[in-house]
C-alpha cells in the first residue's frame, strides 16, 4: 500500500529526500515512544502528534528549517529528526517542544517524517520498516485529512495566537479559508523566527 510519500523540498539538496507518512488510530504509541527514549537507532524518525499539525505546509516548513540548521551544523537537539519536532515549536525549550509536538503514549494520529541522510535509507526501506512496526491505518498526508485531525484550539494555544479571529467556516474542496490562511502564515512566521534574539 502506498502510504509513504517521498518528496524533494525545494532548495534542499537532492541527496536528502524526505519521507512522510500519516497514520490514524495508532495502537502502539507507548512502544514507539519507548524506542525513542531508549535511543533505538532503527527508530530514528520525527514522530509528531498530528493533532498539532495544522497543514502540510506547516509540517514541511519545520522540516525545511531543521534540515537547513542541520546543513549549517546548528542543530540544537540530538539529530535532524528530533530537530524537526523541535522546529515546530515557537519556543526554545527542547523538552517542552517534545511534550507538545512529539508522540505521547496517548497519541492516536501520528505524522512520521524521515530524512534520508545516507543513501541506504530509501523509500522501500522506510516503507517496509514502518509497515512492520506501526500499528495504525495509513492515510494520505494532505490538508483535507489533516483538517479533520488537527486541534485548532490547541495549536493556537501552543503558538499563543488566541486572539486571532477563528474561522468556523469550512471551504469546500480542501482549500483554506482566509482565517485559516492567516493562522497558517502566523505559524510559519513563528517557526522561522524561533531562537532570534
Amino acid at each position, binding site marked *: 500500500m502506498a502510504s509513504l510519500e517521498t518528496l524533494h523540498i525545494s*532548495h534542499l539538496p537532492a541527496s536528502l529526500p524526505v519521507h512522510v507518512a500519516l497514520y490514524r488510530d495508532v495502537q502502539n504509541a507507548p512502544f514507539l515512544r519507548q524506542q525513542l527514549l531508549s535511543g533505538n537507532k532503527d527508530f530514528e524518525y520525527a514522530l509528531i502528534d498530528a493533532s498539532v499539525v495544522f497543514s502540510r*505546509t506547516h509540517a514541511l*516548513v519545520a522540516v525545511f*528549517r531543521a534540515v537547513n540548521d542541520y546543513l*549549517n551544523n546548528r542543530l540544537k537537539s540530538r539529530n535532524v529528526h528530533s530537530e524537526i519536532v523541535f522546529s515546530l515549536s515557537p519556543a526554545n525549550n527542547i523538552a517542552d517542544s517534545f511534550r507538545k509536538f512529539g508522540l505521547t503514549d496517548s497519541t492516536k494520529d501520528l505524522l512520521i517524517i524521515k530524512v534520508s541522510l545516507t543513501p541506504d535509507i530509501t523509500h522501500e526501506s522506510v516503507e517496509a520498516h514502518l509497515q512492520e512496526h506501526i500499528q495504525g491505518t495509513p492515510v494520505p498526508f494532505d490538508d483535507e485529512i489533516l483538517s479533520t485531525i488537527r486541534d485548532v484550539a490547541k495549536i493556537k494555544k501552543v503558538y499563543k495566537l488566541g486572539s*486571532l479571529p477563528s474561522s468556523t467556516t469550512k471551504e469546500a474542496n480542501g482549500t483554506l479559508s482566509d482565517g485559516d490562511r*492567516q493562522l497558517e*502564515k502566523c505559524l510559519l512566521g513563528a517557526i*522561522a*523566527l524561533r531562537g532570534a534574539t
Partner: protein
Amino acid sequence: MTTTTETYRPPPLPSLFATTTPPPTLLTQGAEAHLYKTVFLDASTPAALKIRPSKPYRHPILDRRLTRQRVLHEARCLVKLIREGVNVPAVLAMDWEGQNGESGQGGSWILMEWIDGAPVRVALERWEAWLAKNKGLAEQNTPQYQEGTTRVRDLLRRVGQTVGALHKAGVIHGDLTTSNLMLRPWKADAEVALEAGECPSVDGDIVLIDFGLAGQSASDEDRAVDLYVLERAFGSTHPRTEPLFPEVLQGYRESYKGAAGALKKLEEVRMRGRKRSMLG
C-alpha cells in the same frame, strides 16, 4: 551607444540556494539587499527571496551583527503585521546567521510569500499614460473618463486604509512609495484590455512590501512623516494623480481612531519637511 566593459555579477547566493534549479532570478537590487524570485517547498509555489549579502569592506563581526539585526528586524515587523491582519507578505523561512559554508559567503536571507500583481506605481503610470493619450475624453468629461477617475479614487482610498491599518498596528514603514505598495488583482486576468484602448484596471488589494526601513512606533510624528514621504512620492512620480492625493488621506482618516492626530501633525511636517527641527 554605451559600451559596458563588464556585465554585473550579483554576489554568490547563500549555499542553500546555490544549487536550486532553476536558479532564483534576480528582480531588483538595492544598496542593502538583492531580491530574487524563486519557489518554496515545491516548484509550483512562487516565493520572494531577499538576500542581504555580506559586505566585504566591513569588519566581519560588525558585518554579521548589522545584517543579523536588520534582517531580524524586518522579519519581526512582517510577522507582527501578519498577526494583526495587515496585508503584507508572510515570512516563510529565514536565516539570520549569514555565514554559510567555509567561504563565509552568502549573507542572511528571508523567504517571503510571493505577491501577485504589479506595484501601484505601474498601475498609476498606466492610468496616467491612458489619460495623456485620451486628453479629449477628460476635456469632455465623458462617462468613460469619470468611471476611470472613480476607480483611481477608490484605489487611493484603499492605499490610505492600508497605511492606516499599518499604523494602527504600531508599525511605521519608513519608505512609503508607490513602488512599495503592491496592487494584488482581485481577478487573475487583470493584465488584459490595455491594447483595446480601454482604461487600465486598478482593481485589487493593496499589499505593503519592503520593510527594510520599518520600525515600531505609535507616535503621531513618525506616522505623519510616513504619510509625508508618500505624499511627496506621489507628487514626483504621479503628477497627474497628485490632485487626487487627498483621497489617500481620507481613506487613512477613516481607518483607525488615532488617524486624526497623525493628519494634524502632517500639516506641521509639510511646513518643515521630513527632518525634525535642527537648531544650532
